[in-house]
């Protein structure tokens, strides 16, 4: 165990503490009162356990989540597939029931004010296939009829740049257009609070950017938005604040900048060495000037540093001392991806799962720590 590991554990503790403090500092309010200045969403001790069929063990999808989302905020639940994001957001949307915990949406509870909450929120689900033989405008009109007040159906389409497709059947729309239609249908009731579950999953880069633009505009209008994503760039670009979710828990919370800054350095140096035994321990680099954390990647090492130009020369000296030859060296600005890796030892996307458990036991250590 090296210095770097301790360093990261400390960070984890800091993250955990800061999220606890922020939720417990909220003054208690009575349920049912809709206070326009209160938070849009307040969640305390939320858990959800699915009873498995047969002899399989029950699945704990959500293991105790506390959240407070302010009005006008764009809040992201970021985490890998299966982290519990969708379960959490569906509980907030009233589509799923918590096993335990309190949930307040716009100061109201689902048990007593479900219809009022439904009037005031808009929802896109992860995958909804709307009737193929309906036009986008017809669907907008249909969804508009569910709400006592709201936008003009054509206006809802205009907000997601679908005006030119108003009379097109759903079956003719591309994936990105369908997703924008879903957002239009969520907007048509002019909701105070908008939920977007994985809005860009499965879209091509251009469609993703178009949708980001739409969401960015909604955010600029001061609408409260809660979205889930497993794309860290999406969370970084769209969200004022982010909660990183893993295994049904929030492991870090804050603005993207804050989260990255808590890594202790704004840059990541990744390097790989020519094969030679014995393998160097990551701790061999932990004491280099400006290095705040070290971790082993599947191929090579990753250093978190404040200033690459200061760290790289001393890194090269250290390698020369050990008689090692560089195979590859990259640097990039630290991202939420690095935050996630630092916290869990795993990458966000399953297909990018570089760090294997045998070379990095950090993930499990983080959890036993909580």
């Amino acid at each position, binding site marked *: 165990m090296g210095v770097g590991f301790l360093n990261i554990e400390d960070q984890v503790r800091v993250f955990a503490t800061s999220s606890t403090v922020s939720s417990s500092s909220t003054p208690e309010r009575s349920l049912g009162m809709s206070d326009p200045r209160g938070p849009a969403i307040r969640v305390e001790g939320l858990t959800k356990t699915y009873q498995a069929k047969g002899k399989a063990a029950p699945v704990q999808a959500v293991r105790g989540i506390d959240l407070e989302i302010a009005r006008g905020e764009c809040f992201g639940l970021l985490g890998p597939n299966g982290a519990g994001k969708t379960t959490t957001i569906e509980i907030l949307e009233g589509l799923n029931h918590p096993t335990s915990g309190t949930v307040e949406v716009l100061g109201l509870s689902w048990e007593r004010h479900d219809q009022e909450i439904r009037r005031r929120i808009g929802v896109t689900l992860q995958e909804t296939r709307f009737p193929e033989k309906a036009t986008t405008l017809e669907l907008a009109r249909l969804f508009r*009829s569910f709400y006592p007040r709201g936008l003009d159906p054509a206006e809802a389409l205009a907000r997601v740049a679908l005006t030119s497709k108003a009379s097109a059947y759903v079956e003719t729309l591309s994936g990105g257009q369908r997703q924008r239609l879903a957002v239009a249908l969520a907007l048509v009731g002019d909701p105070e609070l908008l939920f977007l579950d994985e809005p860009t999953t499965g879209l091509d880069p251009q469609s993703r950017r178009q949708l980001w633009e739409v969401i960015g505009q909604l955010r600029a209008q001061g609408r409260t938005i809660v979205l889930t994503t497993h794309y860290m760039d999406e969370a970084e670009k769209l969200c004022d604040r982010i909660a990183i979710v893993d295994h049904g828990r929030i492991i870090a919370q804050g603005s993207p900048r804050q989260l990255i800054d808590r890594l202790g350095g704004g840059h990541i140096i990744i390097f790989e060495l020519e094969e030679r035994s014995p393998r160097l321990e990551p701790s061999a680099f932990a004491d280099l000037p400006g290095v705040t954390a070290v971790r082993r990647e599947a191929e090579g090492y990753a250093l978190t540093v404040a200033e690459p130009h200061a760290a790289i020369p001393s890194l090269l000296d250290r390698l020369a001392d050990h008689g090692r030859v560089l195979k590859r060296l990259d640097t990039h600005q630290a991202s939420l991806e690095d935050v996630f890796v630092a916290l869990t030892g795993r990458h966000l996307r399953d297909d990018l799962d570089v760090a294997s458990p045998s070379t990095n036991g950090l993930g499990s250590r983080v959890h036993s720590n909580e």
Partner: protein
Amino acid sequence: MLWFATRDSNPVRGLSMMSNASCDSPTPVGPFSAWRSLWELYVTRLREFFREPARIFWVYGFPTILAICLGMAFRSSTTETFIVDLVAPSASETESTSTQRAAFETLVEAIQARNNDPQRRPDLPILQFKVVDAPLGWERLITGKTALLARLEGEDGMVYHYDPTRAEARAARAALDDLVQRARGRLDPVRVENQLIQEPGSRYIDWLIPGLIGLNTMGGGMWGIGFLLVNFRRNGLLKRFRATPMPRWHFLSAILGARLTFLIPDVAVLLTVGVVVFGMPIRGSLATAFVVVLAGATAFAGIGLLIASRVSSTEAVNGMMNLVMLPMWMFSGIFFSYERFPDVIHPFIQALPMTQMLDALRAVLLEGAGWPVIWPSVAILMAWGVIPFVVAVRIFKWT
């Protein structure tokens, strides 16, 4: 009948609750716009249906074609035709006598004469015969290509080979034997007069049209409601609707209302084909008949809704619907009367909604029956509609 669908079924109560909310002052909503979602859902459903040409064919075109084909097939059969094979006597002098050969000639001529006789008695069938040798005739008989194999035996004997379980074979045997005996001079001691009844209303086609209406109503209720809802569930549409303030009974009523609407042209087309093409009589009140159809549609919609209430795979719902429909296809008398089934199972058959619907519909259309006769059927149908509906709404899975 839909008032128990959700706890927030009363739009007026929902509105009053909303105006109490302190957060904002929503525009007051009149009763018309509170019902607007019901109307929009209904219209959306209608559009979706009528924009699918394939669906229109299967719902309207196919039963019409089926009615016309079956009607034609059974209408033109006032004269039956049977295929019989006659074994020719061997041509060699040693194996058959000239008497035998002459008798065979006589038989063939007699058959031809009767087939071609314009004054032929209408109850006598046409015997379409084929002269074969014994091995070929035997092969044709056991493969079912001919109903009857006949050969001469000695100077004045006949042997018939046939399968006694085939009605056609028994009839062919009787007809040929009658002809053989008459050809040898048999006379009937009793004078017979045939009075043929071809009164509209008693023919097969008259009986079949209500059966097809029932068949379509059942298919519509099962596929048009059960299958549709499972598809909506699979597509996440039910869940999406659940996240809106739309009253849930609006959705279920719109689906049911649209289903009943599709039934109007459906029933109209079949009845028109029956009346115009086949001269089927309508002896009772059309309005009463329509009430029977509505009650039937409600029953099948209730069953369809119940089947679809929790399933989320189309394969599973497919199997379940076929399982439920199978007894009705077999026993309820769509194509053939259920009187032929043993009496012990009649109570079971009569408990099926399809049986009740068809019995009532035929009573109204063909016998001119009214409410005093059909009300029990309508009551049974309504029970079949309401009980599954109540259960389905309670256990219905939206997510």
